[in-house]
């Protein structure tokens, strides 16, 4: 990404023109570096590489989506004190105007209709291999694509045109990554994630979540800009830095799990004291995500902190994983047959049969 085009200003030059100091910029990169686990000693070099890069052009496509991932993107504020919470992001306005050049985004862009389509086509035509494609929402593959058209063209054809010439494609949210809710049974529209809709697409990163967490999107883009390569990914296409660890491993309620202190009814004393939610159907023990560490809305909270179990939304097919979101998926150090929660002493689903947790 580092080669500037046509004398356009670099990221560093845009930020400098806005009065962002090197110290502030290092701080901004520091937050991302924390998420990416970049050693402190390498921060300066990392930041220099980001500053020297051209502002990446972004084409953000929306298909069978709910705009939740765009809304998540709009929550990328500056943390007032990143040292206190351990997390921060560049401010949205910086992202929009100074760091990224978002050329096409239907929810946010000014032009409509033919003029909007022109913005998209210009990037694909003039900057082939030099832009980032972000995809939000699943792609309906049934019935020749009539379940989602934009400007009279099918979602699948638009995706093929834009992603095939992108330098990298980022599928944000579980719908774009794996089909998500539209792809849940009986999948009436043949909804698929990017990988299945365009087989063989190179340089694809999945950032699932319902929605995805903007911290992980920013970290992925900044890493790509600085290193000119994508972060390492697991078998599901997810960056290891964000999806390499079970929620359960870093959950703030973990010690209560270890002590068998379990919430057994909503609003009971254990619930008010923040005990473990696994008897209420929490999917944290089977779900890979950095939610407990980066949290949401500038590190303000996350669902388990608020009091509800994790839905498991970063896993492919999580809507179909069990017959109820409240089924117990994890029995602690017991087997299901010996599990007191599953056999009558309270919990979310004492009458239902929970499925075997996936590894």
């Amino acid at each position, binding site marked *: 990404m580092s080669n500037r085009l046509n004398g356009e200003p670099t990221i560093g030059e845009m930020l400098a023109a806005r009065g962002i100091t090197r110290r502030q910029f290092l701080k901004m990169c520091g937050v991302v570096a924390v998420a990416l686990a970049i050693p402190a000693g390498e921060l300066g070099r990392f930041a220099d590489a980001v500053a020297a890069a051209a502002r990446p052009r972004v084409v953000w496509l929306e298909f069978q989506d709910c*705009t939740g991932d765009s809304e998540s993107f709009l929550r990328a504020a500056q943390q007032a004190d990143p040292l206190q919470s351990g997390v921060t992001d560049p401010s949205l306005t910086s992202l*929009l105007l100074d760091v990224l050049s978002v050329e096409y985004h239907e929810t946010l862009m000014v032009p409509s209709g033919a003029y909007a389509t022109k913005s998209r086509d210009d990037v694909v035509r003039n900057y082939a291999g030099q832009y980032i494609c972000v995809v939000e929402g699943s792609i309906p593959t049934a019935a020749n694509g009539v379940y*989602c058209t934009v400007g009279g063209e099918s979602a699948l054809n638009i995706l093929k045109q834009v992603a095939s010439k992108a330098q990298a494609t980022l599928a944000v949210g579980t719908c774009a990554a794996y089909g998500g809710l539209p792809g849940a049974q009986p999948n009436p529209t043949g909804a698929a994630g990017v990988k299945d809709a365009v087989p063989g697409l190179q340089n694809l990163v999945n950032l699932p979540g319902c*929605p995805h967490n903007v911290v992980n999107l920013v970290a992925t883009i900044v890493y790509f800009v600085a290193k000119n390569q994508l972060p390492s990914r697991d078998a599901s296409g997810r960056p290891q830095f964000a999806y390499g660890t079970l929620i359960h491993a870093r959950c703030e309620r973990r010690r209560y799990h270890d002590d068998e202190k379990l919430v057994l009814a909503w609003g009971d004393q254990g619930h008010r004291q923040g005990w473990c939610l696994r008897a209420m159907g929490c999917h944290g023990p089977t779900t890979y995500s950095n939610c407990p560490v980066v949290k949401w809305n500038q590190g303000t909270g996350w669902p388990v902190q608020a*009091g509800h179990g994790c839905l498991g939304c970063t896993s492919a097919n999580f809507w179909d994983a069990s017959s109820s979101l409240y089924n117990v998926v994890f029995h602690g150090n017991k087997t299901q047959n010996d599990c007191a929660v599953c056999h009558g002493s309270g919990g979310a689903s004492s009458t239902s049969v929970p499925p075997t947790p996936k590894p």
Partner: protein
Amino acid sequence: MGKIFLPVVTTGGTSSPPPALQKIAIDPITRIEGHLRIEAKVENGVVTEAWSAATMFRGIEQILKGRDPRDAWAITQRLCGVCTTVHAIASVRAVEDALGVTVPDNARILRNLIEAVQYVQDHVIHFYHLHALDWVDIVSALAAEPAKASALQQSISTWGSNSTAYFQGIKTRLQNFVNSGQLGLFGNAYWGHPAYKLPPEGNLLAVAHYLEALDWQQQVIKLHAILGGKNPHLGTYLVGGMASPVDPSNSASITPTRIASMRSVAQQALDFVNRVYIPDLLLVASYYKDWASIGGGYGNFLSFGDFPTDNSGDPNRLWLPRGVIYNKNINSAPQPLDQNLIQEYITRSWYTYTGGDSVGIHPSQGQTTPNYNGPQPPYQYLNTDSKYSWLKAPRYNNQPMEVGPLARMLVAYAAGNARVRQLVGLVLSKLQVGPDALFSTLGRVAARGIETKLIAEQLDGWFSQLATNIQSNNLATHNSAKWNPSTWPPSATGWGTTEAPRGALGHWVSIKNGKIDNYQMVVATVWNGGPRDAAGQRGVWEQALIGTRVADATKPVEILRTIHSFDPCMACAVHLVDAENREVTRVQVEPM
């Protein structure tokens, strides 16, 4: 009947006089949620016919069948990440209605608070980030004199960011951005269009607040992360109550201390509404008063009402009242709403009904069976003589009904709500227009601002109620009597309503043997954006566009102004169509 396509170059060059009859398609309509296409017939510069088409379908009502009704809130919340939370509320209410569950007082207050915060944040985003650029010309702002912008700001508000240096900074930043040559979201827009009326300083002020509001909304919505774990898509609803515990002292719960800090965020939110949003709205409106007589539409309004003041379930105990207004009549009390009079038509929608496509069906018996007969992509125009949208066409008493902030404020006004009457009167007098001005595109913009202020003022009272409950050791947040499916009857039906920021929202559920047997949602944007019905009556947007003067049919900013005034949300419901592309807009000439 033959159709001839004439490509018309819309960029550069001298323009020849427009043809007397043009058919245009705007697709995608941007700055909305989702995929909307509008086709319109423009005769001698006036819209004479319009078709609203949703171009995306997911089949979520089919996906819900056979699932645990306790999961439905989490699934239906994903209908929309802009109107996050609202489907969750309607869903738990529908299931609670079916099972006969009353929620504890704290759950009622928590739901009111979460929804109210959604209104305040969402309405402000709509004004600055989705709608403003139909009225504000960013390029013109480059010509502004910072000292004059400072004087203008000080003349309309006591907001602190008002110095010449501040506006010079915004202008420099904007100039740097334009000089960079990467215009991003702001490229290819209708800048310089003759319909833009604000002076350069007004435009600069709006740009400044576009940026401030981006940061502001992120702070306000932290209240959702505290109350519900995250935004979008909060994770805290339960059939029977809420999963956020309350406690006098335990920091794993919502405590009086945390409520105190949330009250301070809510106070800052109200301050921004009072000193930035409302003054900006009045400033912009004062330059566009002609829009007080454009875009009115049918004049029928419907509100389910919302924000229960107690746990009785009595519709008369809603803080924002329920009711129906016909034919702009706000001089007598609104008609009581009878949900049995709601029907959905699919005569012109890409669905089919087992009883034939010309009947209307009540949502409790609703069917969602796709039957696409439109053109295969890529296409230029839809067949608007046949089915043409993924939205159904809901009718009340066989009448099209407008829903949303204007409907709610008019129903409250007609019902005699003193604060609403006071705020409406203030806005009308500031703009020096009469009550008729409410029935318009501008009226919708004003009603949204009035509602934001009204609700932001109310937040503190709900926080106070919650704190009082906790201090008196009333800590229940969930009624678990019907949590276990073994306690349920073999079959049950229910309905739940809310007023989403965009308007009336209803869910109807039917449960059999512990599973969802049928689930239907009638959504705000379906009321407003749906197509024609069996009788050929236009949908609400379609009607509102008729008669709109369009200066340049290849740049129909006037159509966008009215469509955006409804704040479309297509994922909840459906895209405005500019059927073409590239540098040309195809103008379809039909021999008449």
